[in-house]
């Protein structure tokens, strides 16, 4: 039984939406438009600087690597645990969001301990006589990618696992009855039907990697520079706030473009 009492509705919606309009949209439009001419002039300068181009590519590259790595890790696990071993599903679900409950600094610290010169991996490899001198893992792209992988794996896994839940089990049953082993079931049935899940996961992971700051800055040291690190440099070190604004806008646009692009692709795939 409803009443379309618009006075009440507006009153209820007001606090939250005023807040969002005022802060989110307000800051966005204000920062861009109050300074528009300045920014317009500076745009080309910033975007064409080598710093920027390098950071942009680094960011994209890292994002892509993490997307692929998380998918490679998630797919078999999601597939196997959902269709063959539900107990495994529950264990993974319980464990998978732990990284998010923990401070990004703590996580990064943990990775430093694992990947550092005197860290766990090097200690292990030396102990096993695989190598003689410690490898340099920390402060490279790979370290950042591993750190981000830990952070974003839960999102990719959840996205893929959910899309698998939408696959009617009858399809798998009929494939199995026709003689298909797990590999074929995956290749022919599960993978094609879960692509949208993968795409959702990819957009979340990519967006997250583009925006991540703590993990890249600690695990990358001064060697790896992503867009967000560049942003911070402009703000705290160079104090060039116009440039910083431009970087911020670029980050927003990139994330927005990526998410919209993936959504469009999903719609196209749906029709096909």
């Amino acid at each position, binding site marked *: 039984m409803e009443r379309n009492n618009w006075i009440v509705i507006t009153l209820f919606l007001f606090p939250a939406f005023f807040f969002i309009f005022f802060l989110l949209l307000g*800051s966005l439009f*204000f920062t861009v438009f109050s300074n528009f001419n300045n920014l317009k002039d500076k745009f080309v300068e910033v975007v064409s600087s080598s710093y920027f181009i390098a950071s942009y590519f680094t960011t994209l590259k890292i994002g892509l690597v993490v997307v692929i790595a998380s998918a490679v890790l998630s797919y078999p696990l999601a597939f196997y645990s959902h269709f063959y071993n539900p107990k495994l599903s529950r264990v993974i679900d319980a464990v998978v969001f732990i990284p998010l409950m923990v*401070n990004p600094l703590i996580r990064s610290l943990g990775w430093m301990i694992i990947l550092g010169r005197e860290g766990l991996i090097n200690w292990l490899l030396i102990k096993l006589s695989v190598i003689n001198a410690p490898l340099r893992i920390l402060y490279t792209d790979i370290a950042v990618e591993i750190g981000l992988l830990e952070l974003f794996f839960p999102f990719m896994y959840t996205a893929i696992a959910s899309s698998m839940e939408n696959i009617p089990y009858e399809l798998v049953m009929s494939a199995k009855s026709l003689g298909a082993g797990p590999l074929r079931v995956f290749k022919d049935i599960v993978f094609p039907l879960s692509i949208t899940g993968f795409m959702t996961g990819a957009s979340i992971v990519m967006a997250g990697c583009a925006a991540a700051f703590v993990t890249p800055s600690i695990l990358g040291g001064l060697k790896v520079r992503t867009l967000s690190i560049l942003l911070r440099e402009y703000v705290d070190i160079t104090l060039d706030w116009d440039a910083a604004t431009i970087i911020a806008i670029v980050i927003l646009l990139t994330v927005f473009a990526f998410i919209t692009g993936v959504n469009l692709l999903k719609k196209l795939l749906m029709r096909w």
Partner: protein
Amino acid sequence: MVKILENKIPDILIALLFGLTLSIILLPVVLPLTISFSSSYVITFPPQGFTLKWFANILLFKSLVDGFIFSLILGITASLTAIAMSLPATYAFYRYDFKFKGYLGNLLLSPSLMPEIALSFLLLMYFKALKISYSLWLFLGHVLILIPYATRYIYASLVNLDVSLEDAAVSLGATRLRAFIDVIIPNIAKGLIAGFLLSFITSFNAFSISLFLSYGETLPLPIAMWNYLQVRYDPTIAALSTILVFFTLTLSLIVRKIIGLRGLK
């Protein structure tokens, strides 16, 4: 023969993947715990010796102790505010139909889609220009990013409630307000608490949003820890991490208990 292998290989592969995944997820959380007891002055692996002195050492750093308390207070107030604002809005979505409902719904969740660091910076510029009081910056920023969390959990517990419940109470003589208190609140209590706790954890751990909006002497804990790491690299920070891990994991276990594993979707 081949068939048996074909059945075994996946098992081994899955076991390896599972082990790998588990290590990736858990090791970074567990390692600092082990180092926090090490007696060496530098962080190395494996840890040597056993001492509790690093835990005591934390107390010597005012920035860390103050940071902890500050983050605690900030987290609680920001979460309560976020819930106070989300509750009426979410209730309106649940109860009524109105124009642009879809768009507004997405808008309500949009802060979680924005890159936090970019948002942090834009808010900085904005607050400066509007001459908003410095002490409010962090608070406002945190509430903004917490609104989606609060909304999701409150909505999840509302969405399954029969709309007729309130009408039943009203037909029996209760005013709308009374019906809300007697009928709606008890049934969304779980969602409210889960929303609060999760918002708190998010705020407590938040870094990017606090990076540019912090001002003055007191910094939230994550920022204080970051500053610490710029100059020092000793087990103190590991000891602090151990405490924090237990703290936030306990909170998230409470949330799990309240809403069950896949409880509110």
